């Protein structure tokens, strides 16, 4: 509208100078009218929405066109086609259909002019208006529908943009909350956590790690694995075990101990996988301060050593002195003295075996007990067992039967001392719970690759509900009838047997019933070498 106004002014000025005075006045007035109208329309357009200003504008254009020439020219002459301008404009600036309104208006105007000068109206021109209107309408409505489509697309696009923006904002908020939460968790756990990328550069570390390692948190971020292990002058072995762990980066059940200054840390590592591609993107190492546990363990080891030496030595002395008396090294004893000496020996030997059991148990638990396979004569196993147990079994009035199956090889590979311990413990256990009948120990082949030790008694048996616990340490079949006090011992014999059997890659089973006796079966591999050798 403003552009039209600017164009109108020079046209008006130009016209004023070149046309005869009567026309000049008329054109001048028309131009002023046009200028004023344009200003009014401009103002109206600024203050009011809608198409009213456009209608008025086109009306003014129509009016100016109607009086821009003589009535003859308007009705039949050259000005006839000037009416095409508002008709085409209507289709562009108003609705497509309004083009017909202005075609009709143009037709009415030229009809009136024609009547006023007593001429017949130019029907061809009037028809051409409608033809132009029709073409304008068609192109305009095409344009409009395209615009409408565009507007719909635009609206949808806007909607999608808004949705996406909201989603993104939500995700960002969630991410912020999540990462904030993860950070808070990392910050508050007591274990030191450090994440290395594939190039072994730290991408994340928590304050606990900084405290454990005494390396400032800022230094830990972005630190290389090499620098990480070298920064605090920790022992070479610890450096290597951390590096090996992280470079290998396979999750393992073994958590190596590393010395870090005056602390002892346990370290465990797991691969970090991308949640989408499952590709390995680095590794996370967790360090825990186990200084106290390590100290306790050391104390326990020391305790075991102290007990081993300090407790056994005086017991050994009592036993030895009693033996010297019994062997009458210092002269003959009377019957009473001999009996007392023997009772001292029996009790000391019980005490010694308990201390021995405790130490064995402690050593097995500490992983210090190993088996040493060697070639042993099968028959010697039973011979030695008889030497150790014959007297005790016959003293109780029981029959002691030992057999070797035909298919047993004459020689075995095994730890004779530990096998002896297994057989003695099982036989002692049988003896403890058997008052009459027999104890049978037999060695037999099981298939091609195994052999078994079977210890069968005719004793009180074990109640079914107690069977699962017979190999537990410090436990005996424990009801009123089967008390520890009644049967003696501290309940470690079978626990040690089970652990020794497992150390030899074997299995132990028990079948029993109350009053039916018990059978303990140890199945061992017939191998050239054994675990722990």
């Amino acid at each position, binding site marked *: 509208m403003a552009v039209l106004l600017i164009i109108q002014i020079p046209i008006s000025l130009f016209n004023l100078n070149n046309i005869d005075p009567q026309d000049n006045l008329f054109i001048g007035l028309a131009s002023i009218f046009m200028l004023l109208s344009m200003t009014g329309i401009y103002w109206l357009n600024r203050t009011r929405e809608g198409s009213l200003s456009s209608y008025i504008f086109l009306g003014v254009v129509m009016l100016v066109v109607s009086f821009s020439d003589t009535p003859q020219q308007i009705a039949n002459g050259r000005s006839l086609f000037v009416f095409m301008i508002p008709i085409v404009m209507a289709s562009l600036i108003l609705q497509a259909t309004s083009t017909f309104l202005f075609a009709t208006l143009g037709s009415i105007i030229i009809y009136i002019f024609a009547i006023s000068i007593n001429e017949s109206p130019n029907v061809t021109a009037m028809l051409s208006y409608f033809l132009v209107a029709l073409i304008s309408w068609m192109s305009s409505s095409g344009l409009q529908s395209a615009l409408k489509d565009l507007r719909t697309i635009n609206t949808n696009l806007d909607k999608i943009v808004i949705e996406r923006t909201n989603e993104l904002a939500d995700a960002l908020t969630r991410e912020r909350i999540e990462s904030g939460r993860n950070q808070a968790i990392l910050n508050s756990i007591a274990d030191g956590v450090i994440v290395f990328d594939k190039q072994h550069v730290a991408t994340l570390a928590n304050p606990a790690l900084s405290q454990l390692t005494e390396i400032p948190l800022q230094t830990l971020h972005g630190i290389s694995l090499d620098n990480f292990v070298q920064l605090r002058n920790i022992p070479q072995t610890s450096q290597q075990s951390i590096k090996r762990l992280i470079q290998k980066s396979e999750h393992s059940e073994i958590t190596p101990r590393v010395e870090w200054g005056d602390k002892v840390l346990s370290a465990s590592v797991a691969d970090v996988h991308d949640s989408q591609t499952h590709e390995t993107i680095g590794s996370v190492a967790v360090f825990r301060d186990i200084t106290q546990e390590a100290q306790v363990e050391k104390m326990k080891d020391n305790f075991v050593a102290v007990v081993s*030496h300090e407790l056994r*030595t005086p017991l*050994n002395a009592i*036993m*030895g002195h009693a*033996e010297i008396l019994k062997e009458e090294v210092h002269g003959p004893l009377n019957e009473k003295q001999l009996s007392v000496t023997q009772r001292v020996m029996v009790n000391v030997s019980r005490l010694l075996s308990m201390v021995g059991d405790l130490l064995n148990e402690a*050593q097995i638990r500490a992983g210090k*007990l190993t088996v*040493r396979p060697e070639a042993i004569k099968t028959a010697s196993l039973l011979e030695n067992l008889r030497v150790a147990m014959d007297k005790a079994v016959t003293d109780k009035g029981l029959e002691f039967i030992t057999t070797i199956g035909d298919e047993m090889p004459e020689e075995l590979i095994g730890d004779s001392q530990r096998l002896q311990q297994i057989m003695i413990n099982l036989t002692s256990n049988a003896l403890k719970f058997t008052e009459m009948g027999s104890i049978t120990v037999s060695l037999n082949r099981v298939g091609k690759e195994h052999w078994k030790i079977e210890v069968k008694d005719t004793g009180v048996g074990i109640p079914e509900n107690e069977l699962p616990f017979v190999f537990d340490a410090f436990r005996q079949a424990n009801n009123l009838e089967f008390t520890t006090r009644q049967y003696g011992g501290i309940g470690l014999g079978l626990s040690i047997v089970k652990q020794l059997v497992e150390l030899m890659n074997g299995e132990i089973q028990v079948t029993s019933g109350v009053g039916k006796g018990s059978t303990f079966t140890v199945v061992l591999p017939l191998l050239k070498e054994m675990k722990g050798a």
Partner: protein
Amino acid sequence: MTENLALIIEDDEDLSDIFTNALHAAGYKVEAILDGKVAEERLTQVVPKIILLDMHLPHVNGATLLKQIHANDKLKNSRIIIATADSVQAEFYRGMASIVLVKPISFAQLRDLTSRFLNA
């Protein structure tokens, strides 16, 4: 070789006494030493038929003495019996002695074992 001499190197007086009695009963002439340092010196002077060595000794420990015994060519025919309370240690020393005995060591056991060496 000093005639049927058994050298007992054990710091516990009671055990030393028992071992002495056992070896005596087996027929040996027995000399008992309670201190590692004294034993170290004595081993340069005598060639015992049996050396009964406790691993836990004052001043010079059993392991050091064991090394010296193995290094001393004069003692190559001496029977070494190691006495220890630690069964793990016992396994470690199995290859370095004629017999390794884990305490408690019985009087009768020691007497019977050593009497076999007397005429060997």
